[in-house]
C-alpha cells in the first residue's frame, strides 16, 4: 500500500529539509538543512526515522496536514507551536498516529520560530546532489525545489508502525533558555574597532523583521569597521556574523551562500545556533564570547544529550511507563517494531 501526506494549507517558508547538502559547497551550492538541527534530531528520534532523514520544517506560517492511504506515524518537535488533531490540543512536542481523514493543524504558538514534523518512514522524493534539503533560491531539493503549499502531496515509503497512543516528547536539549547566545570571535574580528567588539558583546540585540532561512538581520546597534567593510570573498560557516557597510550584523543561517565578501566579527557556536534560530523577529537577546574549547565542550554535551535520546510519555493512555528512544537503540534505521526501552 502507498501513503501520502496531503498539505491542506501551508504558510510561506514551510519546506522539506534533511540534514543538508554536503560535499558541493566548493561548487557554490548552499547546504540548506534544518534551521534548528536539535529539534530536527528530536523529531526524527521520536518518529523512529533515520537520523538526518527528511522531515517537514514548519515556519511561523503554520501547516495543515492529512494522511492518505494509511495511518502515518509522525513526531513533532521544535518551538512551542500550537498543535491540534481534529481540534484537540496536543503537546508542542509529541508523537502521534495520523489516521486517514484526521486533520492535523500546526500554528505559531507561545514561542519559537520553527518546528519539525518527522515521519515514521521516509519521504519518497528524488534527491538533488544527494540531498532532499530544499533551497528555494536555487530551486533545489524537496518538492520541486520550492516551499510546500495547499494541494501538494508528499509520497511516503518504508512506513513503520505508528505509535498506539499519543506520546508527549521530552528532550532535555529542547528546553528554552534566556542565556546569551555564545559566539567565537573571528575570523575577521580585527576588521572592527575595540569599541565595536565591546558594543557587539554588550548590546541588547533583536532579530529583525526581514529575517529568513538565509540570514537573521540584527537590530540594536551599529558596529564600526576599523578597516573598511569589503574583504576578498572567503568561506562562510553556519552562524557567521557578517557586518556589511551599514554596520547592522547579519547572522548567516542554513540557506547561506558558501562564500561571502563582508567581514565576520564572530561565529555563533554550533551548540547555540538552533536555540538562536528559534528567536522570533522582535525577540531580544545578547551575545557572549567563548573560546574554541568552550564551544567544543558545549557541542560535545549537546551531542551526548542527543545520543542519550528522547523520552516519550504516553498521554492519558493505558501504558504508564516512560519510554526512551535513542539514536543508539534505533541504530539509525526506521523499524516497524520500535525498540522502545521501558524504564
Amino acid at each position, binding site marked *: 500500500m502507498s501513503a501520502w501526506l496531503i498539505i491542506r494549507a501551508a504558510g510561506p517558508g514551510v519546506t522539506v529539509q534533511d540534514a543538508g547538502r554536503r560535499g*558541493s559547497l*566548493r561548487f557554490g551550492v548552499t547546504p540548506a538543512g534544518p534551521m534548528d538541527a536539535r529539534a530536527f534530531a528530536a523529531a526524527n528520534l521520536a518518529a523512529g526515522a533515520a537520523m538526518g532523514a527528511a522531515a517537514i520544517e514548519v515556519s511561523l506560517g503554520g501547516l495543515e496536514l492529512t494522511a492518505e492511504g494509511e495511518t502515518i506515524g509522525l513526531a513533532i518537535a521544535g518551538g512551542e507551536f500550537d498543535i491540534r488533531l481534529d481540534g484537540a490540543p496536543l503537546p508542542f512536542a509529541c508523537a502521534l498516529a495520523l489516521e486517514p481523514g484526521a486533520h492535523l493543524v500546526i500554528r505559531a504558538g507561545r514561542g519559537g520560530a520553527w518546528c519539525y514534523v518527522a515521519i515514521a518512514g521516509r519521504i519518497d522524493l528524488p534527491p538533488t546532489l544527494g540531498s532532499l534539503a530544499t533551497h528555494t533560491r536555487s530551486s533545489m531539493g524537496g518538492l520541486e525545489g520550492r516551499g510546500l503549499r495547499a494541494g501538494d502531496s508528499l509520497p511516503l515509503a518504508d512506513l513503520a508502525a505508528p505509535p498506539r497512543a499519543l506520546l508527549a516528547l521530552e528532550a532535555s536539549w529542547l528546553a528554552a533558555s534566556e542565556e546569551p547566545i555564545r559566539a567565537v570571535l573571528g575570523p575577521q574580528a580585527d576588521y572592527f574597532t575595540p569599541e565595536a567588539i565591546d558594543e557587539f558583546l554588550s548590546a541588547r540585540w533583536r532579530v529583525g523583521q526581514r529575517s529568513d532561512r538565509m540570514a537573521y538581520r540584527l537590530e540594536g546597534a551599529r558596529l564600526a569597521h576599523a578597516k573598511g567593510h569589503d574583504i576578498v570573498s572567503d*568561506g562562510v560557516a553556519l552562524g557567521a556574523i557578517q557586518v556589511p557597510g551599514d554596520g547592522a550584523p547579519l547572522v548567516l543561517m542554513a540557506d547561506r551562500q*558558501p*562564500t561571502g565578501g563582508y567581514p565576520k566579527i564572530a561565529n555563533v*557556536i554550533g551548540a547555540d545556533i538552533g536555540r538562536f534560530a528559534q528567536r522570533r523577529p522582535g525577540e531580544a537577546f545578547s551575545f557572549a564570547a567563548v573560546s574554541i574549547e568552550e*564551544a567544543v565542550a558545549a557541542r560535545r554535551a549537546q551531542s551526548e544529550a542527543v545520543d542519550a535520546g528522547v523520552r516519550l510519555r504516553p498521554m492519558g493512555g493505558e501504558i504508564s511507563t516512560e519510554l526512551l528512544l535513542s539514536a543508539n537503540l534505533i541504530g539509525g534505521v526506521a523499524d516497524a517494531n520500535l525498540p522502545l526501552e521501558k524504564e
Partner: protein
Amino acid sequence: MRYAAPRCLDAGEAALVVEFGDSVDPAINAEALALDAALRAAPLAGIVETVPTYRSLMIHYDPLALTRAALVAHVEALERAAPARAAASVRWIIPCCYAPPHGEDIAAAGEALSLSPSQVAALHSGSDYRAYMYGFAPGWCYLGGLPSALAVPRRASPRGPTPRGAVLIGGGLSLIGADPMPTGWYVLGRTPERMFAPERDPSFFVEVGDALRFEPIDEATFRALEQKSACGEMIARRETMT
C-alpha cells in the same frame, strides 16, 4: 598582498580558514588550491569538506572527531611538504556567443572601457583563464586571467537577472553564470554549456584550478549547441595540458 606564512583563523569551532593573503592574486590563489589538493590527497578523518576561495581555504571539520590542534598540525605539515603551486592539468574550451541578442551588456562594457564590442569580444576570447573559486549560486565560477584592458569596475547598481549561462566581467575578473541571478557585473555573452546540470554526471565539470578559454561562436551555432546541451551532452571540450 601575500602573507609570509599562512594564517589559521577560526570561523567558529567547526571551520578553520587557512588564509594566504588579502588580495585576488594568481600566486595566492595557487597556494590555496595547492593546500586543497594536498588535503584531498592526504585526507584526515574529521574533515567534512573544503571550500577554496580567492585567497584562502575554508576547512569544515567535526571538532568532536578532530581537534583544532591536530588539524592545524596536519595543515602545517602539508604546507612544509607541498609545492606552493599546483599547475592546471586540464583546460576547458567554453563556447561563447558574444553576438546579439546574447552579449546583452557588451556595448555598455565597451563604452566604460573605451573599446568597441568586437574589441571586447576579441580580448575576452583571446585570454587564458583559471577557475579561482565558485560562489554566489550553484555553478557560478569566478575566473582569474582577465586582461587589464577589460578591468571594468562593477556597476553602481545591479542589473536584472542574467540569462542562463551568462559570461560576465566585473571587478577585474571574469565569471561564468548558471541559473539566472541579478548581478552587478556586465554580461558579455552566453555559453550554451551548463556549468551546473544536477542530472548530469558530473553535475559540475570545471574543478577549481582548471584552465579555461572561450571560443567565440555565432548565434546559429549557439542554438545548435544549446539543443545538444539540453539533451545532457557536454558542450565544453576538455584538453589535457602538458
